[in-house]
């Protein structure tokens, strides 16, 4: 059975990058353009891992991570941040929100695959 990864990013280009990199490795990808859409899709799909951007409309990545971590059923869901925000403060904030890994754009597709496999394999 394929492991399901939810990708939340308002950039269609990045959604496609991640999707291409991970589909080849046998993962199923569910794409969302913002945190709100992600929160709507998570309960209706059996998600194994979340990859999220931080700057997003409606519900941003920080809020998305906090909401997931505040939910008893989703608390343990691995979350990888994929963001162009690379300052110490931003990374620290991502860590405090509850992200498991933090990847900075531009990212190497191999690193995304590596990080995902760390949690799912």
């Amino acid at each position, binding site marked *: 059975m394929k492991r399901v990864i939810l990708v939340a990013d308002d*950039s269609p280009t*990045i959604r496609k990058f991640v999707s291409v990199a991970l589909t080849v490795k046998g993962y199923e990808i569910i794409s969302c353009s913002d945190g709100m859409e992600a929160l709507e899709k998570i309960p209706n799909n059996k998600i194994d891992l979340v990859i999220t951007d931080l700057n997003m409309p409606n519900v941003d990545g920080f809020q998305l991570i906090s909401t997931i971590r505040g939910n008893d059923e989703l608390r343990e869901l691995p979350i990888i941040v994929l963001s162009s925000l690379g300052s110490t403060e931003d990374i620290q904030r991502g860590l405090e929100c509850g992200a498991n890994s933090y990847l900075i754009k531009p990212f190497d*597709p191999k690193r995304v695959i*590596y990080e995902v496999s760390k949690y799912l394999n």
Partner: protein
Amino acid sequence: MENHSNMDQVFEKLGELKSFFVFGQKVVPVIQSIIDFMRDVVPLMEYVNNSIQESASKIPKAASQINSVTNATEMATSEILDIVDAMSMDLSKIKNELADLKNGFFNQRVALESYGNQHPNLNGQFEALQSGLSIDELETKVVSLEEIVKKIEGDSNNITLSLQVQDITSQQLASVNHLIQSVQKRLSKLMNDLSKKGPVDVSELEQEDENTRSATFNPDARYEKSPDKQELANELFNTGQKTSQDEIDKLFAK
């Protein structure tokens, strides 16, 4: 006595009147220069107002053009990525075929050696057969092709990495659009204050803005391939599995 007092008052009033005329004589040229100044300034203000109005009316077009650039680069990037993806799949097939060939050569060599062992008295025919099949040479070529495939895989990975410049530039363009919109709104307000013509219709610009990626962007987004920031993130997250890019590259090269 009363008449004397009245006359004093009249002289006092006349004195005040005289001062007023003296003051008037001094003030009239000043008022005249103010009028002249206003006469010069009003057309200038009109010109400035028209210029602002013209500039403000051009801003929606500029914003629209920026959005077009973003959309076009997004589409082109997507197309390139599709091609790179198709290339990767083809490379994967080639790799499998080459692996099959290598296995085939191995099996042929084993079979040949077994045949040679079973028939020791072939008077040089076995060596001639071995030389004719040239398995070693073919295998060397397969290994060389595998190396080329690996290099192309690395190149396509680098193309994917470089294509992310589109995301970074789209964030920078969104930031510029945001600035343009701010300038347009300020110009519109200024025009409203300067004339009674009313503000420029900003609905077109607002519509353009809605068509963009909902105005979420990192104005400081930079296209940097330096691993420093990623290393900082790894250090802060300190998951106990700090893995360098070199180590990841080695893992994927296997």
